[in-house]
C-alpha cells in the first residue's frame, strides 16, 4: 500500500479493501518511525488526521465521493491551515496558527483528502537545499548525509520515503522541480495563475506557484485536478474553463516534437546528469517523439533577473512580519524601532535576512532603474526566448538541476553556488510557464537524476501525458530510496 499509486489507493478505498483510517494510520506509523531521521514534517497532528479520515470514511457511506476521498496528503508548511500551525520553516511563525485555510488546502479538504501533516522547507521557501528551516534540515532518503533539494524538500522527502502518498509544494524558482529531481519523485509547477495563491505565504508574488508532488505523472494529474481552478480572492488567478489534466495520459507520443535547448547541455552540468537526461530523451524518441535543437540564449540572464525581482518582492512581502500583530516578538525592547529590529533579527534566519537586504537594496532610490527595471527587461527577453522556441517544438526537455543531491553544508557558505542549482528552473518561473521534473535514473553514487519537461502555457495535460508514457516504459519513478525501504 505504501508504494501504491493514487488510483490504486482510491480503488482500494472504494472497494472497501481498507478504510481511510487504516490508510492514514499506516502513513502516520511510518512518519513516526522515519521522520526523526528525515525531518520531513514540521507538524503532524495524528488525532486531527484520523478525524479527517473518519469523516472521509463516513462520507463514502452515503455520498458520491471523488478519487482523492480518504487519501492522506501532506501540505508544505507554507499553506495556511486553520487549526494546525503554519510556520513557513521560520522562527518568525513558529507559533502562528492561521484562522483560515489556503485555497489549495480548502480544495483538498473539499475533495475529502486527509491532512496528514505540514512538511519542512527552507525558511520562507528561500533556499535550494531545505537546510535553512528553523526546524532543522531535511535529509535525503537516498543518502541522509545529503540534502533533498529545496525549498519543498520536506514534501519531496515525504513522498520519496513513502511517508505520504502525495504532497503539495510551491515553486518560485524551482522549489518543486529541483527537490523532486534530487529526491527521485515527480513534481509539477503549473502555469502561473492556474493554482490560486490565496493562503500561501508569499515569497515572490509574481513567481510563486503551487503544484503537486507525487510518485508519478498520473498521480500529479489527479492532484492538479483538485488544486487548479479560478479563485476570486487571488487577482492573478486565471479564470478558465476547468480542465481534466489526466485527459492526455493515454495519448501516444507519435508526432511529439521535443525541443532540446543547447544552453541546457553546456558545461557545468554533471556528466552523469547529462548522460541520464540524454538516455531519457532517447527513450522518448523510441516512444515515437522527435527532437529538435532550440535556443534559449538568455538563459544565463535569468539568474540575475530572478535574484533582483524575486528578492525585491520578497523584501516587501516579508515586511508584514514585524511582531506587532502575530508572529515572533522579541521579549525585550526599548522602543518601537528596537522592537522591529530585535523581533526581525531574532525571527528570521541568515538566508532570509540576506534576501531582504538585497531586495531592499535593489528597490532603493537611485538603484531601482539599474536593477529592478533592467531585471524586468531581462524577464521579457527570457519569456520571448521560450515563445520563439515553442514555435518549433511542443515540449522542451533538459536537466532539472545541473547536479544531484549535495552533502549537507556543502553550499551554505557560498550562496551563489547554491543559487546556481536553479539555473535551469528559474527561467520557467520568469516566463510563467509550466515545468515539471520526473526521475530518469541515478548517478554513479546512486542519487536520483531529474528530467525537466517544460511546456507552453496551459500545456500541463500534454506534459503529464508525455511523462506518463515515459513512466509506463521505465521504472525510475517506482524505485524506493535505499535508506528507507518499505
Amino acid at each position, binding site marked *: 500500500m505504501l508504494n501504491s499509486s493514487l488510483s490504486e489507493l482510491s480503488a482500494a478505498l472504494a472497494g472497501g479493501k481498507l478504510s481511510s483510517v487504516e490508510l492514514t494510520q499506516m502513513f502516520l506509523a511510518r512518519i513516526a518511525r522515519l521522520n526523526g531521521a528525515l525531518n520531513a514534517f514540521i507538524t503532524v497532528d495524528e488525532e486531527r488526521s484520523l478525524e479527517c479520515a473518519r469523516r472521509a470514511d463516513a462520507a463514502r457511506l452515503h455520498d458520491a465521493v471523488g478519487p482523492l476521498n480518504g487519501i492522506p496528503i501532506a501540505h508544505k508548511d507554507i499553506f495556511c491551515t486553520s487549526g494546525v500551525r503554519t510556520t513557513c520553516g521560520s522562527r518568525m511563525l513558529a507559533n502562528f496558527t*492561521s484562522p483560515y485555510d489556503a485555497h489549495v488546502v480548502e480544495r483538498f479538504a473539499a475533495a475529502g483528502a486527509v491532512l496528514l501533516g505540514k512538511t519542512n522547507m527552507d525558511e520562507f521557501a528561500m533556499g535550494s537545499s531545505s537546510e535553512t528551516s528553523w526546524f532543522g534540515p531535511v535529509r535525503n532518503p537516498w543518502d541522509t548525509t545529503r540534502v533533498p533539494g529545496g525549498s519543498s524538500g520536506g514534501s519531496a522527502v515525504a513522498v520519496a520515503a513513502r511517508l505520504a502518498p502525495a504532497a503539495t509544494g510551491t515553486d518560485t524558482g524551482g522549489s518543486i522541480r529541483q527537490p523532486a529531481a534530487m529526491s527521485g519523485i515527480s513534481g509539477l509547477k503549473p502555469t502561473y495563475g492556474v493554482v490560486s495563491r490565496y493562503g500561501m505565504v508569499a515569497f515572490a508574488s509574481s513567481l510563486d506557484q503551487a503544484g503537486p508532488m507525487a510518485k508519478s505523472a498520473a498521480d500529479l494529474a489527479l492532484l492538479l485536478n483538485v488544486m487548479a481552478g479560478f479563485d476570486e480572492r487571488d487577482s*492573478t488567478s486565471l479564470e478558465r474553463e476547468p480542465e481534466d489534466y489526466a485527459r492526455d495520459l493515454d495519448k501516444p507520443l507519435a508526432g511529439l516534437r521535443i525541443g532540446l535547448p543547447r544552453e541546457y547541455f553546456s558545461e557545468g552540468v554533471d556528466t552523469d546528469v547529462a548522460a541520464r537526461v540524454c538516455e531519457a530523451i532517447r527513450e522518448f524518441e523510441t516512444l515515437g517523439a522527435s527532437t529538435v535543437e532550440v535556443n534559449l540564449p538568455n538563459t544565463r540572464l535569468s539568474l540575475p533577473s530572478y535574484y533582483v525581482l524575486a528578492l525585491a518582492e520578497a523584501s*516587501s512581502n516579508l*515586511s508584514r512580519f514585524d511582531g506587532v500583530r502575530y508572529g515572533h516578538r522579541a521579549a525585550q525592547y526599548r522602543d518601537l524601532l528596537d522592537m522591529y529590529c530585535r523581533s526581525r533579527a531574532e525571527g528570521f534566519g541568515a538566508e532570509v535576512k540576506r534576501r531582504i537586504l538585497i531586495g531592499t537594496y535593489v528597490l532603493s532610490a537611485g538603484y531601482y532603474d539599474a536593477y*529592478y527595471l533592467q531585471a524586468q527587461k531581462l524577464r521579457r527577453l527570457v519569456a520571448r526566448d521560450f515563445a520563439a522556441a515553442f514555435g518549433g517544438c511542443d515540449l522542451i526537455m533538459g536537466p532539472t538541476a545541473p547536479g544531484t543531491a549535495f552533502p549537507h553544508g556543502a553550499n551554505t557558505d557560498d550562496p551563489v553556488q547554491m543559487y546556481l542549482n536553479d539555473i535551469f528552473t528559474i527561467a520557467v518561473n520568469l516566463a510563467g510557464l509550466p515545468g515539471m521534473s520526473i526521475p530518469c535514473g541515478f548517478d554513479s553514487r546512486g542519487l536520483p537524476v531529474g528530467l525537466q519537461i517544460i511546456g507552453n502555457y496551459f500545456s500541463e495535460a500534454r506534459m503529464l501525458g508525455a511523462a506518463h508514457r515515459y513512466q509506463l516504459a521505465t521504472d525510475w519513478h517506482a524505485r524506493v530510496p535505499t535508506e528507507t525501504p518499505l
Partner: protein
Amino acid sequence: MNWEIVIGIETHAQLAAASKIFSGASTAYGAAPNTQASAVDIALPGVLPVLNKRAVECAIKFGLAVGATINRRSVFARKNYFYPDLPKGYQISQYELPIVKGGSLTILTKQGEKTVRLTRAHLEEDAGKSLHEDFHGMSGIDLNRAGTPLLEIVTEPDVHSAEEAVAYAKALHALVRWIDICDGNMQEGSFRCDANVSVRKPNAPLGTRAEIKNLNSFRFMEQAIQYEVKRQIEILEDGGKLVQETRLYDPDRDETRSMRSKEDAHDYRYFPDPDLLPLEVSEAWIEQVKGSMPELPQARYGKLIAYGLLPDQANQHMSSRESSTFALSAFTGASRNDIPSLSNWITGPLSAKLNEESLEFAQSRVTSEQLRRLVARIDDGTLSRKMAKEVFDAMWSGEGDADAIIEKRGLKQLSDSTAVEKIVDEVLAANAKQVEDYRAGKAKAFNALIGQVMKATKGKANPQQVNEILRRKLSG
C-alpha cells in the same frame, strides 16, 4: 518687498464605498476598534488584495467631473515603510501611472473666477490609527480604517493665497459630494488636505516648500497657510534659509511645527504590486459611469445664471446638488419676476428652517412647488411679505398649500381699491387731529394714519396701496 505665494494642495477624499478597497470589510465609521478589520486588512500571512470596483468607479466619476484623462491602464504600486498601523509594511497606492491624469477645477475668488489645474488623482488605501492615549505608556492600534479607499487629488502649484486655497478646498469638497464619491465629513477624516507652501520673488524659481499636514477644516487651512507664509517670509527677509520639511498645524497655538525634514524622509522603494494586475478601464466602462453621473456643477451654475441670478446669488444654491435641484425645480414654471424673490426665500427662510431641523433639501417640509405658489401670491398682491411669512410657517407645519391656508385663515390682502378707499375715508374722519398735523408739515402723522388703516383692515391691506390712496386723499 512683494512675495509671491505658491501653493499646491493634496487632498485625500475617502471614497463612498461600503467595503474597503482591497477587502470585503465594512468602511462604516465609529465601530469598536478592530471589529472591521478582515484577514486582508490585518495582513495575515497568505492573504491577497482584490480591487473594489466601486472605488474605481468613484475615481472615474471624479476624472470625468474635472475634465481629466481617465488612463485606460493604471498601476498599483507598493509604498514601503514600517509603522504599526500599516499592517503589510507597505501601502498600496498608484505611483507612476495614476487612474486620473490632468483636469481642472474652477473656483470663485474675490478677484473672480480662476482655474486650478490638477496634476493627477490616484487610488490608494488608508492606514489604520495609532492611539497613544489611554494605554499607559503603550500604543493602541485600531485597524478599522486600514484599507479604506481613498482618492488622492493633487493640484499643480496654481494656488496663490490662503483665500484661494480655501476656495479650492471648498469647491473640491462640494464637487466630491456633488458626484456622490465622498461624504465630505471632515470631522471623521473623510476629506483631508495637505498644503505645499512656498514663497518666491515674482519670476524667480520656486522656493523651498513646506508641506503642512493635518488640515481638517477650512478655517485651519486658512490660518495654517497664513502662518506658514508669514514664517517663511520672515526667515527669508532676515537672510535665513528654509529647509524642505513636513510641518504639522497646531490649531490650539495657531502655528505650524516641524514634523520631519527632507533628510529624514523615507525611501519608499515604490514598485508595482505583483499581487494586482494593472487596472484596465475600458471605454465601455467609462461610458457606463458617465451615464450614471448627475449633471455637473458647471452646467447647473449656468442654468441658474440663465434664470437671471447674479453669480453670488447663484452660488448660494450651489452648496450641494440637492440645493441646486431644489432651486431649479422652484424656478421651473415661475414667473420671471418671481425668480429673485424665490431665490431669497430658498436661501433665507427655507434654509433657516432646514438648518434648524437638520434636514436635507430633499426632506424639506415645504416643496419647491409650494414655495413657487407662495411667491406667486406675493407677486399678484394677494399676500404682503409679512403675511407670506405666516403662510410659509403654516405650510412648514403641514397645513397645506398657500391658497388653502390663505382661505382658511382669511389672510387675503385687501386689494379692492373701493373697499380700501372706504376704510381710508373712515380713518381720516375719525382722526382729524393727525390730518391737521400732517397738513401742518408733521410727516410722522402720515405713518400714524397708515397704521390706523392697517389696523382697521387687520393687516390685510396692501401697505403700498394704502400709502397711495392716503397720499392722494390728503393732498386733495
